């Protein structure tokens, strides 16, 4: 009798373990880079997404169903990206998560779009990562690069009394140009603020001595320098600016967040970065610090930059939309996502509309690095959202 009961239990357990895994699960497909250079960007955000998925599963799942994850490696290659997208769609993915960058994520996102599935870019910050460049079922979990430039300009104007600005653009990527586009949009809206000069360089320029000479030749030092660049060239540019004795505040995009490179520019001061959440343990929201601890527990290290956070936000808002729609069916989920207006998340409010599946306005924490020590000093939300027409230029 006892044996029979044990056997029955075993059968039941086996049925529970296998059957739902095949039929009833909600499937999230990651068509992201597990090798190649994009892995450095995709892996941290994907880990954060996994944390949210784990939380949801532990709390009883989504619509009473467990979330199951399938993955396919894009190998940081566009053609492989399309194949990875097809692989996860064929594996039954209800949500297709694609690479951080628009160029590398779009092939898989286009696959999801033509299969009528929702796709989300892990942390792309171009307006194309969404309706404009993929289609009506595509979203990005991060904030537009332009918002970062606009945030820094407006914050410096109001909180630091900056009136004269200098703009230094690294023309290497769309992301860099995006930051400066937002800055350019904001500047005329700030009464009395003037651009006293602007210059460009390219990320891998060995020296920006010529640009520095022109900054030093200005009749007056600028109140702030808007530096639109990203790693790896950013470190060299910042070091050269400071070594040349230029002490003006430097405003940046989120791409230079992180303390891993600060030892290269000892005692860096007067340096400002907008972030969605703080990796330095001083976020005004204690839940962010708790998340950082969870992340360390899962991956063995603290988040290295703020680009970990969009992965968590992504699963969070998508799961809420699924819960509200009562289905994973793409059109219904998209409709629910598009109803979100300042939806609170751990890393600031999120808004999606039928015109824009991206954030053209967002709360940013301002991190100041002083004597080589970064810490959160303020938070800022731009006074008006950047219109789509200005973003599409």
């Amino acid at each position, binding site marked *: 009798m006892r044996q029979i009961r044990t056997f029955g239990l075993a059968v039941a357990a086996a049925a529970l373990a296998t059957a739902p895994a095949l039929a009833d699960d909600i499937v999230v497909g990651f068509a992201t880079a597990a090798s190649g250079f994009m892995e450095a960007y995709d892996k941290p955000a994907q880990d954060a997404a996994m944390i949210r998925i784990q939380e949801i599963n532990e709390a009883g799942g989504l619509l009473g169903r467990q979330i199951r994850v399938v993955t396919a490696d894009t190998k940081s290659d*566009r053609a492989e990206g*399309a*194949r990875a997208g097809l692989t996860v*769609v*064929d594996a039954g993915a209800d949500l297709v998560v694609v690479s951080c960058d628009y160029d590398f994520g*779009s*092939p898989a996102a*286009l696959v999801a779009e033509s299969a009528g599935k929702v796709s989300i870019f892990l942390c792309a910050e171009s307006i194309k990562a969404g309706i404009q460049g993929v289609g009506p079922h595509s979203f990005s979990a991060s904030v537009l690069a332009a918002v970062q430039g606009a945030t820094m300009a407006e914050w410096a104007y109001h909180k630091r009394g900056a009136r004269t600005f200098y703009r230094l653009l690294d023309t290497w990527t769309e992301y860099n140009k995006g930051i400066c586009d937002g800055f350019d949009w904001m500047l005329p809206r700030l009464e009395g603020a003037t651009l006293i000069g602007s210059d460009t360089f390219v990320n891998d320029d060995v020296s920006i001595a010529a640009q520095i000479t022109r900054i030093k030749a200005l009749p007056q030092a600028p109140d702030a320098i808007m530096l639109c660049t990203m790693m790896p060239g950013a470190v060299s540019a910042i070091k050269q600016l400071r070594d040349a004795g230029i002490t003006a505040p430097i405003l940046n995009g989120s791409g230079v967040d992180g303390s891993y490179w600060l030892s290269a520019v000892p005692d860096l001061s007067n340096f400002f970065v907008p972030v969605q959440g703080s990796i330095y343990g001083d976020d005004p929201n204690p839940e962010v610090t708790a998340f950082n601890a969870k992340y360390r527990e899962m991956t063995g290290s603290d988040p290295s930059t703020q680009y970990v956070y969009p992965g968590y936000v992504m699963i969070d808002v998508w799961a809420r939309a699924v819960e509200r729609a009562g289905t994973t069916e793409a059109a219904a989920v998209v409709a629910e996502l598009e109803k979100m207006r300042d939806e609170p998340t751990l890393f600031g409010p999120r808004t999606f509309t039928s015109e824009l599946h991206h954030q053209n306005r967002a709360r940013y924490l301002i991190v100041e690095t002083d004597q080589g020590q970064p810490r959160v000093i303020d938070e800022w939300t731009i006074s008006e959202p950047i219109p789509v027409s200005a973003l599409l230029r």
Partner: protein
Amino acid sequence: MLRRGSVVRRTIATPIILSALILALAIFTVWSGSRPFNQTVIDVLLRVMLVVGLYIFIGNSGVLSFGHIGFTCLGAYAAAWLTMPPMMKGMMLPGLPGWLIATKLPYWVAAPIAATFAAVFAWLFGLVLMRLSGIAASIATFAMLAMINKIYSNWSSVTGATSSVVGIPIVRDLWPYVIAAILCIVIAWAHAISRAGLKLRAARDEPVAAQASGIDIPRERLVAFVVSGWVTGLAGALFAHSLGVVTPDTFYLAMTFMALSMLVVGGMSSLSGAVLGVLVLSLLIQLLRGLERGVDMGGVALKIPNGLQEIALGVIMIAILMFRPSGMMGNRELVWPRARRRRAADAAPRSSTNTQPTGVHR
């Protein structure tokens, strides 16, 4: 003097066998029903087109070209211009002429036009480049590739500069690619046995004697350059439709070296070598990638570390070239087994262009 009919009859087996191979692969793919595998095979067929395109010029002229991926880029962007929705073109590529913005053609009309666009540029570049020979010609073709890449990476109003161009209709059906690949093979074969092709091969093997016999080498090279520009341009157009996204950096060094190594491993002066090089190397890549993901072999998981695929591929390629310095096929073509035996018997009295050693890789 050979009669044309007999050349056709003696060589027709090669394109037939190669097309049959492609068809067999296609039928197997459709039968397997797997969409990711379908996409893999589309990729393989695109490479067949690219490498066959390279063969038309490199194989017949003996001049190594690093520039043909530039024509692929021209073809891909031309296909994008012709097939994208006018609204998206107006927004992303406002520098295009109005009539082009308003144009929206089906892909199968646009692809040959795009290929012709690439061929026109091949002709323009070729007028200058084909006067050079040896390493000077190779470097000049490389310079052309760099030039095309730089223009396409910076002309933002017409090519979108380094940003991806999206909105290109995606074609995931296998058959258009199969037809195009077979078309390319037939073109390559037809060119090789044409008057121009035979003259060019003669010039490749014995330039002095060829010139003394009245062969205008730059002219014959130009013909091959334009034909191969058309084929690589067509590959580019279909590449754009296979992904739906194009960026200039896709069509640069990585693709150039991938295509060239497939041609060299297969056998630079053989059409069969070009096709087999692609098939064999693609198969190896897929096997190694499968191993990277891990294969279950009767309870034992067989898995190689990520990134080993590239290393293993390099080692295999070195091994192939060590044992067969002129590639897997050397300068032979695939023919019916019986014909080969008969040809071998005939070889002693009559020397044939196909069995002549080439000066390329001596």
